[in-house]
């Protein structure tokens, strides 16, 4: 009963690769044999985010062109039992792979793995079509900005047109302080607009930058709020019912005072 999940967004730079790395690591840590496929041919990055860039021998294009066997191209992550990466080619473009080849590859990997996570490139062209071809489920990553939400809406439409039902939303880089002062769309605002189910809310967290610098997924950091949010996403993927974090920080003296005098509406 393996699952192929594509992580997509439409807009670039919203955190697809970081999300793929963290969820994949989390699934492996929870005992599930997991493979991450980078489908961003020509602009690969999942390898550096995972800290595995020095171990690439073969890539996705080598596999589909038959230059090597799938097992030869899989990089085993020595830090996490059961975690593997299939890197994208860097010197080719998206047309080097066709959707049918991706479907065949995913089916082959199903025999070996519990979870197959596909890191989708930005855009809605060939790279997107390849990434979703073999997927059973989709996670749509967005941030609380008009551009990212608009693109997420387009992606949701395209996923449903391609019969990937009930995509789940992951809202990334949420800032509670900005939501509170009315300068950022809230979780409810975004859900209201996109009308799909939520799988996680990841707060904006400096630790993500630090962990990416080091090539160590933040999900392994016990003190990282983003890491905690990703751990919750992993549990939800595995079917657990986990309440959503509120990220409420300790209320300051002034906030309490204002509340006392009824100066704050909520």
């Amino acid at each position, binding site marked *: 009963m393996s699952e192929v999940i594509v992580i997509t967004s439409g807009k670039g730079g919203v955190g697809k690769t970081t999300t793929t790395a963290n969820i994949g690591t989390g699934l492996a840590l929870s005992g599930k044999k997991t493979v991450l496929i980078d489908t961003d041919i020509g602009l690969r990055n999942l390898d550096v985010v995972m800290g595995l860039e020095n171990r690439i021998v073969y890539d996705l294009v080598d596999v589909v062109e038959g230059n090597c066997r799938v097992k030869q191209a899989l990089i085993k992550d020595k830090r996490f039992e059961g975690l593997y990466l299939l890197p994208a080619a860097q010197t080719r473009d998206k047309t080097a792979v066709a959707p049918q080849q991706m479907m065949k590859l995913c089916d082959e990997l199903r025999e070996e793995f519990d979870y197959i996570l596909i890191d989708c490139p930005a855009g809605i062209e060939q790279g997107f079509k390849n990434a979703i071809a073999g997927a059973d489920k989709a996670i749509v990553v967005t941030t609380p900005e008009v551009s990212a939400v608009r693109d997420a*809406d387009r992606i949701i439409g395209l996923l449903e047109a391609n019969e990937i039902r*009930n995509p789940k939303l992951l809202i990334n880089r949420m800032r509670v302080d900005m939501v509170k002062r009315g300068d950022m769309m809230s979780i409810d605002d975004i859900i209201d607009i996109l009308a799909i189910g939520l799988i996680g809310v990841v707060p904006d967290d400096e630790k993500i930058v630090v962990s990416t610098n080091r090539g160590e997924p933040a999900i392994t950091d016990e003190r990282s709020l983003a890491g905690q949010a990703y751990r919750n996403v992993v549990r939800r993927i595995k079917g657990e019912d986990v309440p959503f974090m509120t990220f409420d920080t300790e209320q300051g003296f002034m906030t309490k005072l204002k509340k006392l005098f009824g100066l704050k509406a909520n």
Partner: protein
Amino acid sequence: MLLDLSKIFGKPKNSKDVAKERLKLVLIHDRANVSPQFLEMLKSEIIKVITNYMDVDESALEIQLTRTKSDDGESVVPALYANIPIKNIRNSGK
């Protein structure tokens, strides 16, 4: 209370409300991957039928294609929203 005060003093809207409003509008166009002519045709047909039964404010008639959650809340389904202001209902019902 805060809301009322801000209205009196003409305080600008929260930027997130501006964002949400702009998004909703732009998504209506994005989602309606049908031509404006199609919507105009639909609109005039609806008016034709409905004026047999009641007087409506044709200039204020709004029609849009959008999406909504299905009844079971599990999936998203396309929806046609029409906002038709009624001026008067005819007696004959013809």
